């Protein structure tokens, strides 16, 4: 046990009330940000260590977070949380701490990952800069490593702990009038293939040069996994909470039991997914994340349930949101999807996606860092960027083909082909 754990045990041995939860997190991040083919400004190393004290008092819950991990610091946080709880009105949705039995259902996984040395990080960057400079292109992006540990302890005997790491390399390459972006998400870069990653970015960036003027309208599009993620996650975030659905404030309120997606669309959560697994339990209260379906057979399968609302409805809590979001893919590579489109567009990423109409699931946003024309099944140069106003229900219903999943930080999502995607205006680049 380290020093913080000993203090936590001491505090929990004599809890101030029958409801004391101490969540402790430690994240040690190194982020190397670069632009104009060089490392500048944001080259930072940070260690964030924090304890969150949650104290319940007669049906009320107070919270206080501190990064003072001394005994006095943690005791002070408990005191402040207790004081806050006493000043609050009784909460009809109050929930006592998670029990050992509840917490025991968590899937146990502990991913293996190695330490990434500074030499390795700067080596990856130098190699990329040198290839990109050689190609006569500019670059910007970030390489970061983020090992972390979370530990949730409460006075009911729960001691949940998890260590993991997520690391990533985001690289945008630019010509004078266009750009292309890709990323590699990993735990420790042991699976990073330098040659392919940078070479593919260089090839696509060259192809993006001199975007052709194109008018907005409805197009058949192949959306990259990142583009699908941007829209899907916003959509889920606004709409899939069970309480909001029941209270009539979600686009899904009037669509329960209705067809909301093509039959082939299957969206689910799997906390112990081989690549996409950040936490086996909620770092807030140690409640386990569970396997469940969100959209299946073209319909809403299950919404997201908080612990309180799940208890009220007599179902299992999924968390708001869940441990991960998986969009079930196929074995078709992206090229295959593009090959099956005679005339359309390939969208590499979206930008500034925002809600436009809640009740019909309409979102707006821009294309960014790679919008390519598809002609006779091949990428044929780039086009000026578009703004879309698109209903996610229409998008899911008009999904014509699904490709191979790509693992991202919190999701695993395939590229998809969508008919009649609604671009409404264009921009100057």
């Amino acid at each position, binding site marked *: 046990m380290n020093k913080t754990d000993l203090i936590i045990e001491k505090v929990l041995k004599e809890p101030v009330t029958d409801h004391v939860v101490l969540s402790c997190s430690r994240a040690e991040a190194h982020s190397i940000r670069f632009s104009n083919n060089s490392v500048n400004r944001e080259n930072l190393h940070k260690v964030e260590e924090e304890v969150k004290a949650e104290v319940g008092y007669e049906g009320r819950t107070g919270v*206080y977070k501190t990064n003072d991990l001394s005994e006095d610091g943690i005791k002070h946080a408990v005191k*402040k949380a207790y004081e806050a709880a006493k000043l609050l*009105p009784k909460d009809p949705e109050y929930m006592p701490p998670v029990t050992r039995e509840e917490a025991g259902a968590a899937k146990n996984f502990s991913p293996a990952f190695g330490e990434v040395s500074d030499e390795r990080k700067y080596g990856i960057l130098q190699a990329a800069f040198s290839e990109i400079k050689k190609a006569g292109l500019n670059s910007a992006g970030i390489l970061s490593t983020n090992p972390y540990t979370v530990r949730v302890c409460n006075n009911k005997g729960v001691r949940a702990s998890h260590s993991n790491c997520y690391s990533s390399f985001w690289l945008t390459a630019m010509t004078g009038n266009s750009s292309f972006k890709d990323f590699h998400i990993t735990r420790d870069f042991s699976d990073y293939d330098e040659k392919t990653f940078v070479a593919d970015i260089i090839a696509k960036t060259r192809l993006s040069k001199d975007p052709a003027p194109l008018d907005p309208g409805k197009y058949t599009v192949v959306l990259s996994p990142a583009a699908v993620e941007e829209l899907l996650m916003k959509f889920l975030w606004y709409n899939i909470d069970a309480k909001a659905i029941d209270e009539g404030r979600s686009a899904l309120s009037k669509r329960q039991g209705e067809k909301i997606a093509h039959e082939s669309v299957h969206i689910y959560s799997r906390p112990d997914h081989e690549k996409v697994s950040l936490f086996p339990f909620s770092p807030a209260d140690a409640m386990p994340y569970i396997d469940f379906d969100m959209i299946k057979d073209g319909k809403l399968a299950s919404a997201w349930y908080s612990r309180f609302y799940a208890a009220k409805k007599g179902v299992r809590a999924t968390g708001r949101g869940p441990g991960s979001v998986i969009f079930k893919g196929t074995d078709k590579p992206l090229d295959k999807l593009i090959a099956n489109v005679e005339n359309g567009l390939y969208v590499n990423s979206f930008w500034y996606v925002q809600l436009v109409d809640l009740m019909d699931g309409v979102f707006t946003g821009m294309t960014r860092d790679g919008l390519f024309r598809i002609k006779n099944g091949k990428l044929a140069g780039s086009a000026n960027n578009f703004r879309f106003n698109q209903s996610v229900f229409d998008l899911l219903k008009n999904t014509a083909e699904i490709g191979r999943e790509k693992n991202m930080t919190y999701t695993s999502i395939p590229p998809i082909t969508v008919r009649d995607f609604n671009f409404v205006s264009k921009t100057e680049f």
Partner: protein
Amino acid sequence: MNDLSEITNYLKGKKVRFADARENLFHEREILTEDTRVEHIDEQHVLGTGIKVLYENGWGYASTSAKDLDSLRKAADKALALAKHADKSASGKVELASEPKHVAKFVTKIKEDPLGVDIGDAVGVLIQAGETILKGKDVIKARGYLVLRNIKKKYANTEGSLIETNIYTVMPEIMAIARANGEVKSRHYRPSPMNAGYEYFRGLDLQPEAGRIAAQAREHCFAKACETGPATLILDPEHLSLTMHESVGHPTELDRVLGYEESCAGRSFATMDKLHKFKYGSEIVNLIADNTLEGGLASCGYDDEGVECQKWHIVKDGVLCGYGVNRELAHKMNLARANGTTKAANYFDVPITRIPNLYLAPGKKPLSFGELIADTENGIYIEGQGSFSIDQMRLNMQFGGDAFWEIKNGKLAGMLKNVTYNATSYEFWRACDAIADERFFKRSGTIICGKGDPMQLAQMTHGASPARFRNIMVRRSK
């Protein structure tokens, strides 16, 4: 302060070109109410020190939450090591604009420490507003939100500056959601967030506003859908605050303009070749940056590079004439000095150029809001903030709003729904043909402006008098 100076002196001995040390406390209380219950409270108290080093032409940054000198020295060594690594891949010479040495203190003028007040007081006020909102016909949800913030900093650099700042911020909001006529619509009341004490929150009378937004949320459900096509818009100060933030504030951050933010926030169409030439707006458009504004969210005396807060024009008589500039990039504009708007959100964050307090200057000719409406035959009046999106060069923008009214024959004629408008940012500002005078000026602003990678949040005030924009493309959102 002694420890911080000791660290900068220690680094001086290691032959760094520049170094600074910043102790940063971020103390924030957040309260979110749902109907008549507390949905969420959060209070965080995060204290630590960040150390920035320029070695030759490489930057390094490291931080620690420990307070002892030994830990500070270790962080200084880490920052120096990172700077040496970065120097190896540096692309050019780093030149820092000079800044006078400051030994100074700056404190937000307050009567009552917002974080010293019992949480029960604010919760009570928000729940009371919730009760009033829920009395509204067809209202299905009430929300209240309050953020109370205290940011305390101590700063020392190798040039001898020693600065202490102590900033207090209050940000309240209430919201109603109504369901009727097959629609669900929300309506907000957002008094301007302010750098102020708790007395600002105490001075707000939320009750009448709670009743009003409940009724307007319902009225919105019965509103007529707008027509698609070019229209005249009159925009209220709260709405304009968001438009100017996105279409003027971000594109005139010089680091963005020069490509440093490409990977995340993007770049800017407002490139330096356009300075003092480009017609950003019509001749009546003056957009002023002012980090000395009393109570302004970005007013902090000195920024996180030790530069004094200043006031300058971004757009003067319609022409682009300034940027937000840090010490490293000032020489690119031949500026002798940065303009004091570079900040970090937390001790572990690197300071970056942030949007200053930025406002649209009121019209010079006497013009009331009523006269502005009366002078407009047909159009749409928009209040508050709704959907907003803009491309990464800050050109193609699309905005919604919180509430919309039809203007018919110079009069407000009932609410509209499903309104969005779309424009190229400079065409939008060029289409401004009338601005109400200073009597109608109102502040607004944000405390959650995101920038950087990893993302950092910053706060800044905006403001305007109601203004009119001609021939803007309005699109019915569904």
